[in-house]
């Protein structure tokens, strides 16, 4: 299976930092929350990441990657720093379900299964899935964020998605 990049969100040209923020905020938050698995920590880290990005915005070089990959790279570093600092493995707390699980609602059952399957994934696999599906990043962008080659990122992503599908049954 080949995972291809589809990124409608990034089609929005981020001509200013505010535009970039609006285009990526929800996805960055989702990605950070997937890593730190704590709502208040995710908020702190997300705010910190955007502030760092704002301060460093003049150092952004389009030749080295997209703005989206750049902001996710900053968010990743901030999240890992937070993990190092806090050294805690609290699960995501008080994340309200998006829908009430009704036995006959096939979609709700399927999503609950996916959520459980995601929880069972290794942190690195979960991060790859988050970068791909929450962040809407291409394989090249994921490679940039993780500091690895594009082919390596593609291979790892393929494995992670396979594990997720297996976990979903």
């Amino acid at each position, binding site marked *: *299976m080949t*995972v291809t990049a589809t990124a409608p969100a990034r089609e929005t040209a981020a001509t200013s*930092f*505010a535009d970039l*923020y609006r285009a990526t*905020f*929800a*996805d960055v*938050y*989702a990605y950070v*929350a*997937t*890593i730190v*698995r704590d*709502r208040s920590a*995710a*908020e702190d880290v*997300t*705010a910190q990441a*955007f*502030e760092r990005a*704002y*301060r460093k915005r003049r150092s952004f070089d389009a030749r080295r990657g997209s703005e989206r990959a750049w902001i996710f790279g900053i968010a990743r*570093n901030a999240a*890992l*720093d937070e*993990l*190092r600092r806090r*050294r805690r*493995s609290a699960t*995501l707390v008080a*994340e309200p379900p*998006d829908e009430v699980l009704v036995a006959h609602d096939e*979609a709700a059952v*399927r*999503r609950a299964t*996916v*959520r459980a399957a*995601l929880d069972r994934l290794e*942190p*690195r696999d979960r*991060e790859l*899935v988050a970068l791909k*599906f*929450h962040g809407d990043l291409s394989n090249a962008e994921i490679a940039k964020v993780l*500091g690895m080659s594009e082919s390596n990122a593609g291979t790892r992503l393929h494995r992670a*998605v396979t594990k*997720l*599908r297996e976990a*979903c049954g």
Partner: protein
Amino acid sequence: MNDMEQLREDVRATAPRPRPEFAARLERNVEAGFKPARAPRGERRLNLLTPALALACTAVVAVFVAAVAIDGTSGDDEEGASGGVAMQQSAPPEEESGGSGGAAPPRNDAELRVPENTRAFDTAGPSTRSADPRIRDGRRVVEHRTALELQTPANEFAETTDEVLRVADDTGSIVQRSRVSEREGKGFARFDLRVPASRLDETLADLSRLAHVVSRTASTDDITRAYVSAADRLQDARDERRALLKALERADTEAEADAIRQQIELARVRIALAERDLGALRRRADRAKVSVTVRSTGRVSEGGAWTPGDAIDDAGRILEVAAGVVVVTAAALLPVAILAALAALAGRSVRRRRREAALDAR
């Protein structure tokens, strides 16, 4: 919708969503441009001082460079030509032996002239029975030698050589030997002077003002040992003569008296030799040897005015020295920069590994 698209939709549907109040707060921060946190007072002061300190350091370096560069060209101004002759030390003149009757004295070569107040050393000198005040206080007896080389424009050569003689007269110096030659606009003169040791500094200062000093070499010979030896021999000979005179008074026979008279004559000769040696050493200590060489450059002086050409020369010299300073600084800083870069790379690598380890540790 295929499986992959379905999975993608399901995963996106499970994505954690930010609380609206947090989103609104961050939106406001973004709109406000993340107002900078106020730095602590000490840090603010340092931030304000940093440009001023950098400016001051730059100014100091610039003044230093300019001073060095212009100082290096000051001699050229006098001769009106950019011969590029720098102040340099030449080999000292050939040394004479340390004095008759004594071992070779220790030499004490100085790169530059020895100041007046260091001629008498406070260290204890050799023991002596002599009553000579030079060595009675344990002071050293030294002979000074100086070689001075002057360079002058061709049209000032004769005047400069005349001035050398005038300085010699004014300072009570003796001109032991002089030689002046001038041919096809190029002149050479050599003066061997014996300058009173007490006026050596004054004499050298006067001579140095006559023309551009190409080199000035000073050395001192410590002749204390030879001096003490001669003084002791003189004292011994005098004591011996005194004793012989007393013995002569007590002589009983004419033959005995003749033998003592012969010994008295020998003692008298020894006294004369010792006095001669001592006198020579005294003269060496009292009169410094100054050798003055005057050369003409073959160029004609253009006068003392600072011309645009001089300004261009000075500017070129300043740039030359500044470039030298930059090269030397770069050479000194390069290893530091390499180490700093390596440390930064290592630090980055360690930080990255630690971050990754934080993810694995979950």
